[in-house]
């Protein structure tokens, strides 16, 4: 087991290296530079000075090498180009938690509600709860985030001045953004949960449990839930990783100082450092969360646990027979 984890962690670094380097090369190869979009009157000398200051005049591979060198020696991801004087990792440390706090609320509430609705829909298939689940899923998927955010904002801050329109401060500023962030996970997890529960509910062991006379709640909690968690956990991993990066639409609508607006802006304004740094953050959390998920599989499902052990034996003996 320990060996498996160590191996996975080594792979993690490899994937991180490949992804970040690729992103670095890609963002640099998009035409235009940080000055094109903002400075109208740009003599050659000024551009050359700018390039020299930020090391953009070097060949791309040299820049890439410098990036990794800086990271490995000083642990820094470099200075932002659009926000001169501020290091990219400072942004991450300061603003990723804001996005995360907001996102985790949306996700936790959304996933919980979605799962409850999904279970309910599966248990009452082709009845009202099922149709309600389908309806919520339709709403959650087909109402674009900006529409929902705009409607919520107009209704709760202009029509009824119950909440502040935008900004960041106490708990009150959480309500509307979290409300907007909840709908989409409710929709998604409701549908997946319903499908998973339906898969499980016809299994023999449920029948066995029922015939043993176990109370319904216990059956659902002990047998159904545990066996439906695999896809849910699989889907949660990227969502959790995405939380740190924040949501572009929600954060720009409610002027939340998270990371969500930075990424798209950084690409548009060619803030190479920020693009690479944010990709670094995303990839690291994403890959890590996938590792956690793979380990969770072992905890959730006994069959998977059994298999990892068996596999080592099986590899040698099984190969010929499988051909």
């Amino acid at each position, binding site marked *: 087991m320990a060996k498996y984890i160590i191996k996975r962690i080594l792979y993690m670094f490899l994937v991180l290296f490949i992804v970040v380097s690729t992103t670095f090369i890609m963002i640099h190869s*998009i*035409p*235009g*530079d*940080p*000055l*094109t*979009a*903002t*400075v*109208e*009157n*740009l*003599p050659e*000398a*000024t551009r050359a*000075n*700018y390039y*020299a*200051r*930020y090391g953009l005049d070097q060949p791309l591979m040299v820049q890439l090498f410098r990036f990794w060198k800086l990271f490995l020696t000083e642990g820094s991801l470099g200075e932002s180009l*659009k*926000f*001169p*004087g*501020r290091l990219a990792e400072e942004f991450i440390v300061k*603003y990723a938690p804001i996005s995360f706090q907001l996102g985790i609320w949306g996700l936790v*509430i959304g996933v919980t*509600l979605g799962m409850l*609705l999904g279970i309910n829909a599966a248990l009452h298939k082709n009845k009202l709860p099922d149709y309600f689940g389908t309806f*919520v899923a339709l709403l959650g998927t087909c109402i674009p985030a900006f529409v929902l955010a*705009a409607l919520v*904002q*107009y209704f709760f*801050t202009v029509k009824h*001045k*119950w909440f*502040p*329109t*935008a*900004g*960041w401060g*106490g*708990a*009150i500023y*959480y*309500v509307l953004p*979290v409300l907007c962030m909840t709908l989409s996970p*409710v929709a998604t997890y409701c549908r997946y949960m319903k499908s998973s529960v339906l898969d499980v509910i016809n299994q023999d062991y449920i029948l066995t449990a029922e015939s043993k006379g176990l109370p319904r709640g216990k059956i659902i909690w002990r047998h159904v839930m545990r066996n439906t968690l695999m896809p849910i956990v699989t889907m949660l991993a990227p969502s959790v990783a995405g939380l740190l990066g924040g949501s572009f639409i929600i954060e*720009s*609508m*409610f*002027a*939340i*100082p998270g990371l969500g*607006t*930075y990424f798209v802006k950084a690409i*548009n*304004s*060619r803030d190479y450092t920020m693009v690479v740094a944010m990709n670094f953050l995303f990839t690291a959390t994403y890959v890590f969360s996938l590792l956690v998920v793979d380990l969770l599989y072992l905890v959730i499902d006994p069959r998977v646990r059994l298999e990892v052990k068996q596999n080592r034996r099986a590899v040698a003996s099984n190969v010929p027979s499988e051909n």
Partner: protein
Amino acid sequence: MKKYVSIVLALVLVLGMLAGCGQKQEEAPAAPSTPSTPATPSTPSTPSEPVKPAEPEGIVVNGETIDKEQYLNVVGSDEPGTLDEFHNSVAATGNILSNLFTPLVRNMDGVLVGDGCESWETSEDGLTWTFHLRDNYWQDGTPVTAQDYVYSAQMKLKPETAFPYAGNWYLIKNGQAINEGKMDASELGVTAPDDKTVVIETEYVVPSLLNTLTFYPQKQDHYEKYGEKYGTEADTMLSCGPFIITDWTHNSSITLEKNEKYWDAEHVYLEKVTVYSIAEPTTSYNMLDNGSVDYLAVADNDYIERFTAREDLVNTRVQLARTFMWFFNMKDKYFANEKIRKAITVAFDRDATVEVLLGGVPIKAKGLYTHVMYEGDYNIREYDGDLIQAMVDKYPDPAALLQEGLNEVDGTKAADWTFKAGFGSTGSKMKEQAEYWQDTMIKKLGIKGVELSFDDYAIAMDGWQTGNFQVACLSWGSTADTAYMLNLFTTKSNAIPVHFDNPEFDELVNTLNKTVDPAERMKIVQKGEDIIITQNCLVCPISYNCNNVFEYKYVRGVDRSPFGNSSYKTVYTVGRP
């Protein structure tokens, strides 16, 4: 289920909000006690704002008793990249800086008023400007000296600073040579003969120098103390202007508070200004709607209608020095032909574009220069007249003109001809406009089609500069310097890449740079515009941008300069509910 949870959640948070409001109200009344002290008994120094001795009820300005609590909430379009003026490349920063520093001269509602200086004079050849500084102090109590202004200007042009807007400062003597690393920064045409005098020499004659460049002071030892970190957070800043920055929640809001050490502090009424960084227009409209901000520029028809109907809002249109236009690639086979360029310019439907597509906010273009550009006392637009209308009158049948042009090129039938138009935006508004122009071009010119391509601005501009386009659309801002627009079309300039090589025109711009007399200059500018628009039709101007500002009726004294960088120095409120 979901309903209950959200209701419970809402309740919890509503309670939280109430608690929050309570705190705010406690804080707020404490504030006015401090402001009333400096502004109380003052002898009126500016005639326009007679300040009467304070009565118990409050301060009276221009015959009105102003509110006890003086604060302002506004929306800044974008988060300032940095408040370090040497490294900033974001336009939004300018507004904040003009509140924190004293420029030598401040443009207040179109009038130049000495801020850092008491008076100034220009030499006869128009190349040397002398400024006599007034007594003003930095936030830390040290005096603002002439050296501070010199330091700032020199830093902007030093190659190692890499100031992105250095190009605008090439008009200062030796500016270009210093920026190119050929000369030492001490040779710059901004010098300080003594602590209270700043002398500026320009490379060529720039009558509108003070509207073109903003000269801020910068305290060298403070700047060097923070180095790279200067301007990144509120506490790294040192102000000498009407306000100091007390809080900067990045990407959310900036708080400015009155600077008591400012020389004119008695005429600064606002105690606190909150500038929200809101990128999403809908959000800022909602904030104006519910009174979270006190004024706002509104660009969407529907919201304009909604706000016009409101009785507590006043609408003003502020013209800007920005032209929205199509420009042609002279290197292209077809667009090297003048008749084809003119046919498109004439066929362009400016009325519907301005009135319907752009919501009536901008003004229909009449030529290259906007209505806010002056040469001495001459308004360039009024002097030159409507060049576009003249062209439309001259060529009543653009389709025929196009066919003539095509015949001169390769004899293609108009009905088989298409051209490509590039746009530096991927927003749906741009797309909507482009689709309208596409359809009108097809209808009016009888051509087969127009191929539209949308790219992110930097990609688009990059492609245009390498000559990879036929027609492109952009909006270009001008400085107050009349030579600026003409300079864009000289042979060596590739800023707007029309690839226009005309020695006669280059010579004309050269002459303009040596001429002092406004009447003479006006004639040269007129000739220049004639070459660019009437004779060659290098660009097809569409409209002049405007800010359509809605402000609450209780707001007074908002500075509206067409060249941006307005300060909140003169703002106050009367009767804020």
